[in-house]
């Protein structure tokens, strides 16, 4: 599996650390309420299809990136810097 780092180009999967769903970029307001926070901390979708994940290019340029991939076909559809992603 190879991931297209927006900075370094296409690199081997072993250079990356997997963080989880890109949902982490949507942190609720501090006073958004228990339900929103419980959702944010504990609940994750388990999609059969396109999903967005956070990866850290720890062996390379040290950027956090959001990778879009398909869990059914294993296609990697693209990646962007987490800095600009939502």
């Amino acid at each position: 599996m190879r991931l297209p780092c927006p900075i370094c180009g296409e690199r081997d999967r072993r250079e990356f650390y997997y963080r989880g769903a890109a949902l982490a970029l949507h942190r609720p307001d501090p006073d958004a309420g228990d339900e929103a926070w419980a959702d944010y901390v504990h609940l994750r979708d388990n999609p059969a299809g396109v999903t967005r994940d956070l990866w850290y290019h720890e062996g390379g340029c040290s950027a956090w990136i959001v990778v879009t991939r398909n869990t059914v076909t294993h296609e990697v559809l693209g990646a962007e810097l987490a800095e600009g992603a939502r």
Partner: protein
Amino acid sequence: MTELLAKTACDGLLSVTAGPFTLSEEPVAPLTSLMPYKGRDKALSAALEAAHGVKLPGVNRSTSKAGISVLWFGRGQFLLVGAGPDGSLAEHAAVVDQSDAWARVRLEGAGADQVLARLLPVDLRAASFKRGHTLRSPLGHMMASVTRTGVNAFSIAVFRSMAATLVHDLKTAMEGVAARG
């Protein structure tokens, strides 16, 4: 006070040879990381050129002139090698001394790219990785910086604490490739 002896990172470990390959320690040089503040890349590049005669390189590239070089060193990070940083750089970037933090070695010999192919998951052959090109990638499990400095020469840097592992891994790979004749 006890008299302390200055030792290089690979003191007592290098140099070693195997077949056509030589691994030696790079000469001691001041190393400084430059991390430009947001939107200040161009200003830093101009200040670098005025003070040291080298511009800021692009991603996966290095610039050098008269023994001073600047390596791209990661996202928003550059490494100034061979000269202490001019004070003017601090206006545009976070400037941090790294001189004793890295073990830097030089791998030379025809087919040196085959030695590195055993250790890094990137294509370092001359067709895609030319003189002056640089990148960050794991060498074994060590976060390394690799720069091609010549037709058959590479400069490699890892954290200083990993110097012995770096030398061991490279030496093993050198011997392996050399044994194939």
